[in-house]
């Protein structure tokens, strides 16, 4: 989706403000939102990481830019809870469960939370898949504009680069985000010259590396 989240190369987005001794959370509510998102996402399925990222991308652009980071996460939680039917809008408005609504059992509890925090959630898949490209090969990022979730930023589409390394087989976020299957395929580290991306204003000694799936690439 050509959304406002796809920011690489945009200009005049302000100065970079960095803070000394920055805390993990700037206010208690941020920590609660982070933690709620972790336990809800731990359920997997429609709560998977790619679906989460896409949910944030679907926020209206003006809201996306105005909101703080964890406000976006909070908005995603609310939207997702209603979309999945876990909670109704009426319950959110009222602040308590509807009378007679069934009580669930928390997926993550005090007893299991340490295991959840320590658990890896790999997206590498141990399945056979044909690698369509190989290290050292010059390729072009396809000029495509998927209307849904994608991890192919606009700023490389149509540009030529070089495969540096085949990283192996990984699930494909463009389908996984939409609950349309994992479509496992090879994923590569691809190197682009900054001059190929941005023209002569870029330094000839600058290079941009992206991780890119087979479906994002074409032969030159």
């Amino acid at each position, binding site marked *: 989706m050509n959304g406002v989240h796809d*920011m*690489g190369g945009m200009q005049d*987005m*302000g*100065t*970079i*403000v*960095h*803070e000394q*001794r*920055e805390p993990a*959370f*700037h*206010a208690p*509510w941020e920590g609660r*939102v*982070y*933690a*709620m998102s972790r*336990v*809800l996402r731990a359920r997997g399925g429609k709560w998977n990481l790619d679906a989460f*990222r896409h*949910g944030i991308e*679907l*926020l209206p652009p003006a*809201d996306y830019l*105005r909101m*703080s980071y964890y*406000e976006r996460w*909070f*908005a995603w939680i*609310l*939207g997702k*809870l209603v*979309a999945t039917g*876990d909670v109704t809008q009426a*319950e*959110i408005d009222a602040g*308590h469960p509807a009378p007679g609504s069934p*009580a*669930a059992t*928390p997926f993550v509890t*005090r007893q299991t939370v340490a295991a*959840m*925090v320590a658990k*890896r959630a*790999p*997206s590498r898949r141990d399945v056979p898949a044909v690698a369509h490209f190989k290290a050292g090969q010059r390729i072009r990022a396809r000029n495509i504009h998927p*209307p849904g979730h994608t*991890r192919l930023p606009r*700023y490389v589409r149509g540009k030529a680069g070089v495969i540096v390394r085949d990283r192996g087989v990984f699930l494909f*976020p463009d389908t996984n985000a*939409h609950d349309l299957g994992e479509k496992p395929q090879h994923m590569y580290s691809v190197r682009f010259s*900054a001059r190929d991306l941005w023209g002569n204003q*870029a330094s000839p*000694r600058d*290079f*941009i590396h992206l*991780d*890119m799936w087979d479906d994002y690439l074409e032969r030159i």
Partner: protein
Amino acid sequence: MDQSKPDPVDRRGFLKGAAASAAAMVTKPQGAGAQDPAPHEHQVVPSDVTLRVKAIESLLVDKGLVDRAALDVIVETFETKIGPRNGARIVARAWVDPAYKTRLLSDATAAIAELGFDSHQGEEMVVLENAPKVHNLVVCTLCSCYPWPVLGLPPVWYKSAAYRSRAVIDPRGTLKEFGLELNDDVEVRVWDSTAEIRYLVLPERPSGTDHLSEEALAALVTRNSMIGTAKVSLTAAGDGA
């Protein structure tokens, strides 16, 4: 098309509507500034968002969807256990132990797991070695991908529109904003975290540190030096900045 599968466009439309109404529920124009990194500790009256989050947490607890004690543990873990001091230990170990450094550069995921840092968002680690003529810089232009187990949660600037937009089109200008000016003959490699590979920069060991212990070295390593927006120096003590 398989008719049993719901049309993704319809679903997207539905989710988009849900996202829009959720956004309306969350934000008021006076909400916490999007790019405002100032601590909110002086706030006396609970903010609108504080109350809304409390209300939703209570609702989810009442619905049996969330265990409040589990949330407490997660917050505490990221406030006290998982943070840039983990990454600093890895860097210091690599500086003093050449065999460890070799393992770290060839299979970072396994080498980092040796020190016990192998949880979510560290499943596929790659370590990038800085050298006198090569400087690495990590960004996530699409969202905020970041190696949680070794660096904790990302700082506000890493998630900001300013950094995400500029790091790929003007890396040298971006570094100048952090006070780091590179010579023209240094190659800059920007790593846009577009997949599930998570990157940790191995900064150069500063000269004049031969006498320091591994622990003392780790204390010099800053968060920014492991993202690539700073070098490690003897003057700036590692404070997570």
